[in-house]
């Protein structure tokens, strides 16, 4: 009886056991990068939780990092919601990366509070596979709300935030810094990642080498 209860608890999405980076909940979306997946609990982007991607400069590869997962989700028929993207998500490039665009929603709120509301609604709806947002001001209370909404909707909540917020507390299940570094061997760049926070593991550094995910080859994206 007790064991059953413990087992039931372990199945619960909110619980993680220390010292265990890999669990078999299956609640993760593979990232599409063979060297990144093993570093993430569950082997991918955590479903039903917030992931913060911290970056300094637009165009550093921060969006390409999540594209393989988003493309896979869209092809499974899950909706991808973009709330207030800073630029135009460019349809020809998205399709070339395998995205099913008929499963993409662009949401244009007028104000910051409406944006947070829309993110929460989309996360909670249960129909979105992933919600992407670029919140400018986001206090811990708002983040907590979004985290709960992501749990309720079993949704991948991707927040793109400036790396300056690294020091602030956050309920996100995963915080990962991303930035380009010059590739010493070739002409291009590689994406340097630093995992600041993950469930059941400490910080880690890794870089996505050329060829992975077809995104960071020597002469730019394919």
């Amino acid at each position: 009886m007790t064991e059953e209860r413990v087992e039931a608890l372990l199945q619960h999405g909110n619980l993680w056991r220390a010292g265990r980076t890999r669990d078999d909940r299956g609640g993760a979306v593979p990232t599409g990068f063979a060297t990144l997946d093993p570093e993430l609990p569950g082997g991918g982007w955590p479903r039903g939780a917030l992931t913060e991607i911290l970056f300094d400069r637009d165009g550093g590869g921060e969006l390409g990092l999540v594209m393989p997962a988003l493309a896979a989700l869209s092809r499974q028929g899950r909706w991808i919601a973009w709330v207030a993207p800073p630029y135009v998500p460019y349809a020809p490039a998205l399709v070339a990366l395998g995205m099913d665009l008929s499963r993409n929603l662009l949401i244009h709120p007028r104000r910051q509070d409406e944006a947070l509301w829309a993110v929460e609604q989309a996360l909670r709806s249960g129909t979105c596979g992933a919600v992407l947002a670029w919140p400018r001001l986001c206090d811990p209370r708002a983040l907590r709300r979004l985290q709960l909404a992501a749990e309720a909707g079993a949704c991948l909540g991707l927040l793109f935030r400036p790396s300056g917020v690294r020091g602030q507390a956050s309920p996100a299940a995963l915080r990962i810094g991303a930035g380009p570094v010059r590739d010493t061997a070739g002409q291009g760049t590689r994406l340097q990642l630093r995992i600041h926070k993950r469930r059941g593991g400490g910080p880690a550094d890794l870089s996505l080498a050329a060829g992975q995910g077809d995104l960071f080859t020597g002469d730019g994206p394919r």
Partner: protein
Amino acid sequence: MLWLCAWLPRLGLDCIDRLREAGAAPAVLTGSRSGREQVLLADERARVHGVHPGLSLSAALALCPGLAALPRNEQTERAALERLASWAGRFTSRVCLAPPDAMLLEIGGSLVLFGGLEKLVGGIGQGLEALGYRALLATAPTPLAAEWLARSGSCRHCPSREALPGAVADLPLGVLVPEGRDRSGLAGMGLRTVGDLLAQPRDGLGRRFGPWLVDALDRALGVVPDPRPVFEPPARFRAAAELPSETADTTALLFPLGRLLDELSAVLQGRCRVVQSLHLELCRRGEGKTDVSLALGRATADGTYLLALLRERLERVRPGAPVTGLVLESGVLLSAAGESGTLFGPDTGAAELEALLDRLRARLGEAAVEGIAPAADHRPERAWCRVAAGQAGPAGGSDGRPLWLLPEPRRLETRSGRPWLDGPLRLSGRAERIESGWWDGGGIRREYYRALDAAGARLWVYRDLAMEDEQWYLHGLFA
């Protein structure tokens, strides 16, 4: 045939009282009779203070200073009765109005379906109660007898025509003869009840009071037929309500609005109908009104859902002057069988998505949610288009394009002949020449390059060959 009569003795009061939240002040319905304003109906809380029908309004206010005096509106009552008749269509296809305050349902054919008389009558009573109307119910084999039984307040159920004379015998004559000369004439003959009347020879009654009296008795007992026009439910739902007290705060509208939506929802569910659009009018004091329209992605019969959407809209509505009334009107009621005709086909999750889209549009506006698709054009800024959410585009993707496109190309500085953005840009790869669009006046002649800035960000830049100075522009980011 078995007829059920639902008599709504406090219809006028219920119409308004049900829009008030529980715990509101005592209320009476008032009207003018013989030139003075008097109480027509009083609710329980007013009765506790000794207020009763017939009392003059000033006397009632003296007895109970906080009393809410609500003027009677016969149109509102008639409309409410018709909505209830529409609602009653869930129990039987034959519903007849018995104005001003009753309706008749032929339930003989529905008994088996609803599990017997007791359950059916219970269901009708509870349904009316849930909508906020007090009703007295009675059944009889003829519509007139059912009406008499209900209006006398006896709430009896008479199963067969043989039992009819006995069932109506002790009813007071008031159920059939209005107050006036005829009633006093009958009283003068020593007749007090319907039974007394039935015992009299018919031709004598006919000679003295006219054929209508005998005819009424015959119809009630089923001796002559009593055809009634069947109520046709309207194609749209419309409910107008004067607010018990005017308000400038739109959140105070939610309770009465919720009641109207409950009624809409009950009508829809009972008749297997759904609505795809709603229109709400807020009537302002003095002149004018504020309109709120709601178009739904997916037709629904769910009142709570509609209320949630209207709440979002009302939060941003400023009526300007206090609101005195609401008018709720639905679009055409659609058959619920057609419900699967949604934008996204029958796949699972479509309902959740449409609900999400409805919520987003209700708060952010119609244009705030869209989809994107590639378009067949070589010009980069025209190689994508906005489409309705969920629509596929006409063209495929193309390689070597950035994930982010700038809404407008941004002019770059040039230093010693090279493009510059917080440092020199290093061009990589081969140039891609794009020349297109000369035929529609939006022609371009550009040379696109991938570029790396000092921080390692990868950009999509071009040199504008159409211009003499061949300026550099930033057009996209390989994010």
